[in-house]
């Protein structure tokens, strides 16, 4: 993000403020030393952040024994695909399919509903608009963990427990997404829509044919967040369902980990499962990282 800034080359800048050559040499030494120190810190921390994933990938190709005796070595003594083969026996393909279904519906649903709601809150006149904005903010303050039991209660009451609709519909709520869209629509000049209004375009037409196509960047952000959020969703899935057929990757791998599929460490198997479920999100992250990174930090600055 620093690259957004145009600044004069500093080396030149500060040198011009120095008067004597001795200062310059000392300054140069100090600067080189601090750069070296900075890189050391960054690289050590980067190893701490990256190495666990390297070990994870390597161990997934090991035998159980190899993973126990050579835990630090990312290279298997004898590479084997056993762990990946065994995944099929624990219904992993089914979990994957269920995750794809949930993620697809939640992502598409959120994009449609958030942009519709965001458009109305940004552009339309109706009684209760201010109240709705305040209510959305109030609801956002409700911590997710507190909703665990309440969500189960309502899904059970409505007879939706253990169904895909129970896994999908409650996840459509996305206050963050509504605000992303509302704020993006706020930045589009009213004149754009005004012209269409004068030409007789109705609300639906103006939303669908004019405003939505102009909101591309916000839609991409929303899609990336919705994909990442629903693919990784765990707590909702443990209270919305319990049957084996409705396991998603998160609940399935959690069950694998908490020992519901037999004893033994079986780390290669667990790590292989965790690795596969990480890959889709990792791909999206590397492609759209500017969106994700800017959404996190940049949003906070912009206020």
């Amino acid at each position, binding site marked *: 993000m620093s690259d957004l800034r145009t600044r004069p080359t500093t080396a030149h800048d500060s040198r011009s403020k120095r008067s004597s050559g001795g200062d310059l040499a000392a300054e140069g030494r100090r600067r080189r030393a601090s750069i070296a120190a900075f890189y050391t810190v*960054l690289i050590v921390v980067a190893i701490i952040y990256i190495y666990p994933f390297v070990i994870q990938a390597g161990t997934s190709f090991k035998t159980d024994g190899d993973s126990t005796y050579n835990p630090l070595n990312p290279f298997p003594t004898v590479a084997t695909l056993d762990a990946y083969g065994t995944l099929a026996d624990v219904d992993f393909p089914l979990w994957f399919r269920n995750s794809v279904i949930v993620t697809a519906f939640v992502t598409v649903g959120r994009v449609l509903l958030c942009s519709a709601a965001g458009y109305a809150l940004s552009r339309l*006149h109706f009684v209760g608009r201010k109240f709705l904005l305040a209510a959305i903010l109030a609801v956002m303050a409700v911590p997710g963990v507190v909703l665990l*039991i309440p969500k189960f209660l309502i899904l059970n009451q409505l007879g939706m427990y253990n169904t895909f609709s129970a896994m999908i519909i409650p996840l459509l709520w996305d206050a963050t997404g509504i605000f992303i869209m509302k704020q993006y629509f706020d930045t589009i000049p009213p004149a754009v829509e005004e012209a269409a209004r004068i030409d007789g375009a109705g609300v639906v037409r103006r939303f669908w044919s004019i405003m939505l196509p102009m909101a591309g960047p916000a839609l991409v952000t929303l899609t990336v967040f919705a994909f990442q959020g629903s693919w990784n969703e765990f707590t909702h899935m443990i209270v919305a369902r319990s049957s084996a057929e409705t396991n998603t990757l998160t609940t399935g791998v959690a069950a694998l*980990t908490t020992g519901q599929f037999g004893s033994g460490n079986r780390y290669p198997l667990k790590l292989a499962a*965790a690795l596969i479920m990480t890959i889709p999100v*990792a791909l999206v992250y590397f492609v759209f990282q500017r969106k994700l990174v800017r959404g996190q930090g940049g949003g906070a600055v912009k206020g």
Partner: protein
Amino acid sequence: MALTSADDVVVATHGRGADQAPRPGGPRRRGNRLYGREPVLAWVFVAPMVVVAVLFLIVPILMALWVSVSDWSGRGSPLAATVGFVGLDNYAAFFSPGLAQRDLSTSIRNTFYFVLLVVPLQTLLALGLALVLNSRRLRAKSFFRTAYYFPSVTSSVAIAVVFLFMFSASGPVNSILGLVGIEGPNWFADPRGLIHVVAGAFGVDEQPAWASGSIAGISLWQWLAGPSVAMVSIIALVVWVSAGGYMLIFLSSLQGIDEEVNEAAVVDGASTWQRIRHITVPILRPTTTLVVTLGLIGTWQVFDQVYIMSQGNPGKTTLTPAYLSYTTSFGSAQWGQGTAISFMLFALIVVLTIIQRAATRDRENPSGRRGRRRASRKEVAS
């Protein structure tokens, strides 16, 4: 579970967006006659979200509120006529001696030590990484940023599995400790509290007489146990995961600092450390307040990691209020008590959220000198 989810960003965002949004239509166009069917269509546009929110957020919370004052056992509907009203009995259970009180006190103790370590550690790590990454002379910054933020976008389940392996008895962490001659503990099976371990090194192995008094169901000695060895590995995981997100928040604030201030300090002969200590850190104070309160809100809710990695074990030393409310309801079918715990946790987090929003407002509308800085920051951001 990204502790700093996009939610936080929007919370930080609403202040300006809501106030400065262009008034739809402008002041000339007051009155509904001018808008025809617009008000009706507007409600059609927001209706799906409103229905989902009412049905799956507001109604369930009201149902849970009822369950927390009822004797519902988990059979049938909590709204059935056979379910009785028991007043505040379910809440009172935690204020009189018994298993319920002991468990809740234990979970509060565990989470207290968890928060006490995680929040300062992740804030310092995030601040340190942001300060280094903000240095203008470094290359490959985006590589490091990508690496540090990656755990935040990854599934909490996948990360927990990796850390279970990292901290397993014969896992990588203990291998590294072995390289420097330390015999690592069996992390997830070790209920010893760190403070007890240190006390033991000084010969205090058993509960001393002065610490045997019971407070809220567990002895003072137990309150003072410190985080268990098992909890330490969960602490390591959470710090490792969340630091990246907070680092980005610090970085964005750092990029708003007017370079002239630093240049002037350089001319005056201030060292790097002096500049950080006397310029950068004071400027970052509102951001630090935000990061700390977001950290408090996130850490008091810790659930996923406990569910996947330890289920409250060993010796209930990783039990947290969120996990306790889950097991009390789904495990022991004490639905009233389980929901009561979640409402007490709710109250705590609402208080923290109010503090966080006040802190965000301070950061958004700084007065006087800070206003100018903010103005320059806006230019950078746009």
